């Protein structure tokens, strides 16, 4: 029983990290209607930047989080503005998806070129120290991921509900042409949305780097999991992504222990297929707009 509770704690903490990565992905999907296959590689870029900042500048990864959020926001803005937006009017909507696949491959190869295939572990003091609650242990690094996950989702929720820009983003997702008629510059909304999605990944990178070493393909594992979360939660749904992330965190943690560490990804993907078969709109799928 104690083991089980400990695994549940671990799973929920991991879920916080998945939540941060997944809300970015689900936003980009729900609003731009784009499956961003380069999401994981943005995480990878963020993790190398964290490593660089830690090793070269001697800063703690957590101190690097705010600048990383900013840098990734800018990178996201530039990608949407200069790579994806020019393809917006392309005849075939799939062109944009291929562009993100291409971007993903390009970034992986760039990382290989610059850093090689070695693993880059980011040193970070304190992250692996733990708090004990009776028989249970929580690593500081885990707790920070969990708290950040909650804060990010809550902050995005408030932003979406309470601000003009947030409402315009929701309106664009629900009825693009009508949003334009209200005076919304949809291209700008897409740019901001991609920026926010990438910024989330910037935060995730700073949090995960001390725990998981950077490598050119590190993004794949996290983002494939995030895809499962997004589908589970209902594509485009913020709170769906949050609940989905916690659930997948639990599945990850429990199946690694009770089934086999090497099989946990198999379990997650079996779950993925089952969701697609039996509940393709996800747990909180609202459907999309009425357009």
């Amino acid at each position, binding site marked *: 029983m104690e083991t089980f509770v400990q695994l549940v704690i671990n799973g929920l903490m991991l879920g916080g990290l998945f939540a941060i990565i997944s809300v970015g992905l689900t936003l980009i999907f729900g609003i731009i209607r784009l499956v961003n296959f380069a999401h994981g590689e943005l995480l990878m870029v963020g993790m190398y930047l964290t490593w660089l900042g830690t090793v070269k500048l001697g800063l703690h990864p957590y101190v690097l989080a705010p600048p990383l959020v900013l840098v990734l926001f800018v990178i996201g803005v530039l990608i949407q503005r200069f790579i994806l937006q020019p393809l917006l009017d392309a005849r075939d909507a799939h062109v944009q998806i291929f562009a993100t696949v291409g971007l993903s491959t390009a970034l992986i190869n760039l990382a290989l070129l610059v850093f090689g295939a070695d693993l880059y572990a980011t040193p970070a003091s304190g992250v692996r120290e733990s708090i004990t609650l009776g028989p249970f242990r929580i690593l500081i690094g885990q707790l920070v991921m969990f708290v950040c996950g909650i804060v990010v989702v809550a902050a995005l929720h408030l932003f979406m509900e309470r601000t*003009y820009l947030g*409402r*315009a983003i*929701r*309106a664009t997702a*629900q*009825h693009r*042409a*009508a*949003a*334009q*008629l*209200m*005076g*919304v*510059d*949809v291209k700008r909304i897409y740019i901001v949305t991609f920026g926010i999605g990438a910024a989330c990944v910037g935060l995730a990178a700073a949090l995960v780097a001390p725990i998981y070493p950077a490598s050119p393909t590190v993004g794949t594992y996290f983002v494939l999991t995030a895809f499962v979360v997004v589908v589970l939660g209902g594509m485009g749904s913020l709170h769906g992504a949050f609940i989905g992330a916690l659930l997948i965190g639990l599945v990850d943690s429990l199946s690694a222990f009770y089934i086999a560490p090497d099989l946990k990804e198999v379990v997650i993907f079996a779950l993925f297929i089952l969701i697609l078969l039996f509940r393709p709109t996800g747990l909180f799928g*609202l459907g999309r*707009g*009425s357009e």
Partner: protein
Amino acid sequence: MLTLHEVHAGYGRTTILHGIGITVGAGEVVTIVGANGAGKTTTLRTIAGLVRPTAGRITFEGEDIGRLPPHEVVARGITLIPEGRQLFPFMTVRDNLRMGAYTPHARDRMARTMDEVLDLFPRVREKLEQHAGSLSGGEQQMVAIARGLMSRPKLLMFDEPSLGLAPIIVKQVFDVVERIVATGVTVLIVEQNVFRTLSIADRGYVLENGEIVMTDTGATLLRDDHVRRAYLGI
């Protein structure tokens, strides 16, 4: 105020509007009459910037607006209340109305406008916290009109405001349109209920297959044989 000069427009390679000319003067109520598929909606969408004219000029208050994206057209004071209502279904009615006041000019005065608009739509006031998608068709149309007014437009365009509504609701919609007209805002309206629309319109245009075939005062068009036969079923 608004002038379309030899405007051509369409979708992809298909040209729908073949060089139409329309003018709307400040304070006027103008209607476009035409059969299904004549190009009325396309005309309004072209003015709103959702469809790009392939040739011709559109000017508003002396400025060329033919190449502007929709959000810049709204910012200049032209608001389209689109066919089929096009509300944001998962947003509350209040948020739909707030979206109506998205332009900087309207945003500054949102609270006051909201009060004025809700005075015109007491039923909408009762539904402010409901999701727009959960309302009946008639209620949704009222919200769509209210949302259009939130932008404080100089020129308000209606596209088939009574389409698909029960007769009693149609009457309410017309009452509202008449009250809006009475406030002096300039109106360009497309409406299947040709008789009632021509009765409130200062002038009308008859659009057939993407071309303007006739234009006159509302009263004269109501007495015209061709109009009566083709659009009034008399």
